[in-house]
């Protein structure tokens, strides 16, 4: 079995685990994830609480399952915003006049000077911290990656002979964009979506850790970590579970992106 498939399989399994946890949390969790129970606070792992309870007596497994939902929600919206805005911008930049392409690329560079985290802190300062501001900020910060990729992908497609034939046959620009360009760059965009998802998961975790993401009492892995840090001297293992969840989710989306890239990027297939 080649390395290509290993990335795809391991990434797929890890991402599948996160998705399954999130879906499962809608129908079942061992306990109510926001139920505070002072009687069982900071309980060690046991048959009743598989990974123990936190400082408020909430069940860690239940919080991790619901936290997966938060992570995926933020990721889907942020990457969705970035893909829906960034792809047409990139395609337009490639198909439109040269000055437009130049303008888009310079604007891209400028937006890149505002990393997701900084943008989210700015949004939090002005509009108040929330899941929504975090999602929008991460989304905006990710638009340049999609725009850049869509632009370079479109330029490659536009140089092919079948697009030349389509032009000669009198197809409109819109028809060429929707029937030839988009289907051909979809694979590349899927790769970018997976990699961006990993970045969104990281950014959400960091923001929640700083208190700029998901608000209490909604469980989120980043805030679980922040709460666990207060108890690092007494129960350091509490920080382990959300930390592991974040790292495995990021690893999963990164590997999935690598696996998909090997599948969709024809330049790489020849090397293997």
């Amino acid at each position, binding site marked *: 079995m080649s*390395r290509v498939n290993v990335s795809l399989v391991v990434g797929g399994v890890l991402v599948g685990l996160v998705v399954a946890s999130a879906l499962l949390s809608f129908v079942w969790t061992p306990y109510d994830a926001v139920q505070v129970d002072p009687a069982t606070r900071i309980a060690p792992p046991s048959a009743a609480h598989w990974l123990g309870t936190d400082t408020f007596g909430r069940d860690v497994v239940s919080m991790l399952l619901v936290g997966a939902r938060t992570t995926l929600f933020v990721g889907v919206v942020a990457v969705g915003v970035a893909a829906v805005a960034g792809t047409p911008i990139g395609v337009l930049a490639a198909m439109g006049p040269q000055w437009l392409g130049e303008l888009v690329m*310079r604007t891209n*560079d*400028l937006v*890149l*000077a*505002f*990393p997701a*985290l*900084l943008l989210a*802190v*700015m949004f*939090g*300062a*002005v509009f108040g*911290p929330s899941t929504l501001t975090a999602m929008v900020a991460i989304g905006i910060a990710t638009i340049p990656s999609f725009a850049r990729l869509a632009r370079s992908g479109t330029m490659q497609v536009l140089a092919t002979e079948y697009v030349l034939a389509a032009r000669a046959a009198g197809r409109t620009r819109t028809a060429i964009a929707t029937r030839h360009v988009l289907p051909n760059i979809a694979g590349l965009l899927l790769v970018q979506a997976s990699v961006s998802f*990993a970045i969104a998961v*990281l950014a959400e*975790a*960091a923001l929640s*850790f*700083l208190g*700029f993401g998901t608000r209490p009492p909604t469980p989120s892995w980043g805030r679980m*970590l922040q709460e*666990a*840090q207060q108890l*690092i*001297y007494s129960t*350091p293992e509490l*920080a382990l579970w959300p*930390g592991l969840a*974040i*790292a*495995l989710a*990021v*690893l999963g989306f*990164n*590997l999935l992106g690598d696996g998909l890239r090997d599948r969709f990027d024809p330049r790489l297939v020849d090397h293997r």
Partner: protein
Amino acid sequence: MVLHLLRRTTVFVVSLVVASVAVFAFMTVLPGDPARVALGVNATEEAVAATRAEFGTDRPLVVQYADWVSGLPRGEFGRSYVTDADIGPQIVDRLLVTTWLVLSGMVVALIVALPLGIAAAVRHRTPSGALISGLSQVGVAVPSFIAGILLVTVFAVRLGWLPSGGWTPPAQDPVQFLRQLALPALALGLVQGAVLTRYVRSAVLDVLREDFLRTARAKGLTPTRALVRHGLRNAAIPVVTVLGLQLATLLIGAVVVERVFVIPGLGSLLLDGVANRDLLLVQGVVIVLVLAVLVVNFLVDVAYTVLDPRLRRAG
């Protein structure tokens, strides 16, 4: 090359101006009247007007922007609407702390990435090469604040070798400074090192496939000498680009790591500013961070031009 540099400098200056307008518009225009925020909803119109005059926010926005932006090169960021403290000196003090953190993180990243990346490329068909690649993949997935918490758990809580946080200026106590810097620098640097390792590996792998390296070896150089004499310089070009981009990532990563290790840097100042709704302070820190990212990107571009012989001879 001169033309290329001139063009890049123009783009850089325009970016600086547009970025400062964007930050000013976002932080000053959107949140509403700072005088009302400071005085609360029950304040009289006269009191609000007096506070506006005191803050200078009764002037046209263009004048306010010009006033703010012209102070930046002199390190003048205005006075806080909340604490009335001069913002400039606070930012300068904190920037120094964050610079220590970022540079030490970068040193750790380079120490990790250069040998590992080169080894992974040279041995890419062997198990040890695959192991390094796998480890770097895992390292990329661990954000620096999680790495920080793990390092604290092991080296501060379990082993008790190093302090779990805090900050001492180097001039005051160099030993304590280094002890407190060690874990945050490792937290930032190990993660960035993992990312960098992948780029070093792929850059060296690309160079290993080049014809000029085959020529060098055909001329009788050993594979190691050929790589050192001809390969690494060429592999350095993409690595320098990534290094610059990483410097920006490190700067933002430091914001979170400072929180983990209770370090009084720019990140802590930013977050405290947000918590106190001190928007002028937040605006100041944000513009410093954004300018730093733009300056680094510009310098990388210049370095790229100087390093790449094709660009150096052109124009």
